């Protein structure tokens, strides 16, 4: 393992590697951001705010396929981590790019969905449900894009042979993005009553 950066980075008084600890704290703060939005959404939904019956207009099929895609991408990124632990750089590189591919598929389906909705006049200003729908899935999509970019950058480091621990970190982040989707899926697609 390379020793770059200050000594502080390589200390570990808690026993958890610094990078991972930092990632967990990042995710904790993300929980509050997405959690805050989800809490607001539920508050309005249970209030019976007009427009929330539009949940039946979202395509369960598209949502389910997207869930499937993200779950599979989670698998591939965890396999990338397993590979790098064994020191197999090429395999890990390959799995990371599979994950990026799945991310791309997710975004394509998302774009297709957005286009369909907008054509039917359900824009972000249509009513509160659609406002939440576009805000939350949009914020989630931004996280997906961010994750893909970081993964691409990391993958080349891996091939050159350093910063192996980052595969695990981006993996944890990616799983979190997956987790958020796992909750967005029932909120926007299934629970239409």
């Amino acid at each position, binding site marked *: 393992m390379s*020793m770059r*950066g*200050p000594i502080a980075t390589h*200390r570990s008084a808690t026993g958890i590697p610094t990078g991972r600890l930092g990632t967990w704290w990042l995710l904790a*703060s993300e929980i509050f951001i997405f959690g*805050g939005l989800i809490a607001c959404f539920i508050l309005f939904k249970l209030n019976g705010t007009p427009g929330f019956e539009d949940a039946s207009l979202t395509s369960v099929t598209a949502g389910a396929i997207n869930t499937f895609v993200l779950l599979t991408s989670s698998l591939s990124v965890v396999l990338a981590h397993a590979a790098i632990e064994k020191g197999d750089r090429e395999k890990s590189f390959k799995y990371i790019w599979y994950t990026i591919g799945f991310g791309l598929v997710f975004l394509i389906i998302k774009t297709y969905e957005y286009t369909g909705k907008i054509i039917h006049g359900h824009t972000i200003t249509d009513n*509160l449900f659609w406002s939440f729908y576009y805000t939350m899935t949009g914020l989630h999509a931004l996280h997906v894009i961010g994750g893909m970019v970081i993964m691409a950058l990391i993958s080349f480091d891996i091939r050159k042979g350093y910063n192996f621990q980052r595969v695990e970190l981006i993996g944890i982040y990616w799983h979190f993005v997956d987790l958020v989707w796992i909750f967005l899926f029932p909120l926007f697609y299934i629970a239409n009553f």
Partner: protein
Amino acid sequence: MSQEAATVQTDIHEEHHEELNFLHKYILPTDHKIIAMQYIFTGMIMAIIGGYFAYAFRMQLAFPGELVPFYGLVGPGEYNMLVTNHGTIMIFWVAMPVLIAGFGNYIIPLMIGCDDMVFPRLNRLSYQIFLVSALVLILSFFVKGGGFGGAWTSYPPLSSAAEYSLTDWGSSLWVLAVALEFVSFLLGGINFITTTMNARAPGMKMMDIPIAVWFIVLAVILFMASVGPLIAGAVMLFMDQRIGTTFFLPSGGGDPLLWQHLFWFFGHPEVYVVLLPTLGIVADIITVFARKKLFGYRTVLYTAFATGGLSFVVWAHHQFIAGIDPRMANVFVVTTVLISIPLAEMMFSYIATLYGGSIEFKTPMLWALSFLAAFLIGGVTGIYLGASALDVYFHDSYFVLAHFHYTFFPITIIGMFAAITYWFPKMFGRMMNETLGKIHFWGTFIPFNCIFLPLFFLGLAGQHRRIYNYNHFPDLATQELQDIRVFATASLVVMLFFQLIFIYNFFVSMFKGEKAPNNPWKANSLEWSIPSPPPHGNFKTLPTVYRGPYEYSAPGRDLDYWPQNEPPEKS
């Protein structure tokens, strides 16, 4: 961490820290000390802007409708913009960067004995985002329609629709600046927490961490845990403004009260976010200058935990009469008044620390003690406002204003001066002028009380906030009340005048002051064991810690201090 690993790392460390060129040292630094300076200087520049705003609107209140010297005419819109941005700047761009990001960055690695933050480049990034946020805020004063004037709480619908606020881009840039600032501190906060959790010097146990570090980290944790919903809220508010959604507009099914909940769920812990670092810094200073061990280290720490925890369940006391369900108010009264319990215990411990001491009234100590005195007033007047029935009378009155200035002024300004005067020798390697420091202290502390004590009485008289000219309210346009306003404004001008002495002292001492020894105050914590100013990489050999930070006047020793890294004598 094993001893071998430490030596291996020290080798790497020494070849790593060569001299950097100007660009990398000062413009794009990764060194925590330089980043700390950047934060502190940016914060001080913003403090000057905030103080200038305060001067402008106080002059308008004292002499309504007249030209304010060095400013111009203050109309109603202008006045709203001034008070709004005064509040925003002082909390988000002065208190937080100077106390948490600035001094946090400076003292955390030094006090826990490591060479830098664990993520130095993340640290740099967070400062850069912070700088951008400050620039965006300043830009917002100059766009068409002027700066945002909807109070620092920016309650919608006023803040969410240009037709109501009349500041179309002003409000959007304001929200954008605040959101960027939050992101910056989230990133910085992750760095602080991880550093303190993982990068402590060998031998430094949880209970050996100086209170200042503990409290800054606690503050950051509170910040991270409370700000998430408000970031979500800021996104929603920004979309309301720019895209036309209706999250907070009742016309489209939204609810303006939701923003208040999102805001105050953050806003109340935020008070403790800025309070805790100052309390920590003050704890360090009073122990050093009273040559005493801190009275009940654990008690102080646990009361801080309790305060932090309680601060999450009191937010609705800002909304007692905002149209929330009155039954909920009872719950929040109980939790709010309960906060007095841990905080009272903490204050008692601080005061008990003085007992049996040998108190030397150097400038940092004067600031620290005056913080305790002023904060005591701020604290006890909080009880009035925590009582919901009194809030029916005091809500949004000058009583509230005087109360929170009695907490925020000590926290931000007094705390900042305490920290600067205390760590100045370490930061710049020179001592500050003691006489000028004391003149500045009295010239700030006395006028401060003269500004805000009278405002309590204005509050009792029913004077409400954010009014540019009280002549439109006959009951408030009396000569008696006007005299109080003039007196407060005059005190403010006097206080601002005395700040010039500080600025003079600061810069002259920085270049011409007496050279500072390693440990001018004879303090224990690790930062005083290295040269002033510390070199890049801080410690020549990374220290090992043998005891807690407050071992002053320990029995059986000649010296009345006992540095944390001094190995125990072998018996």
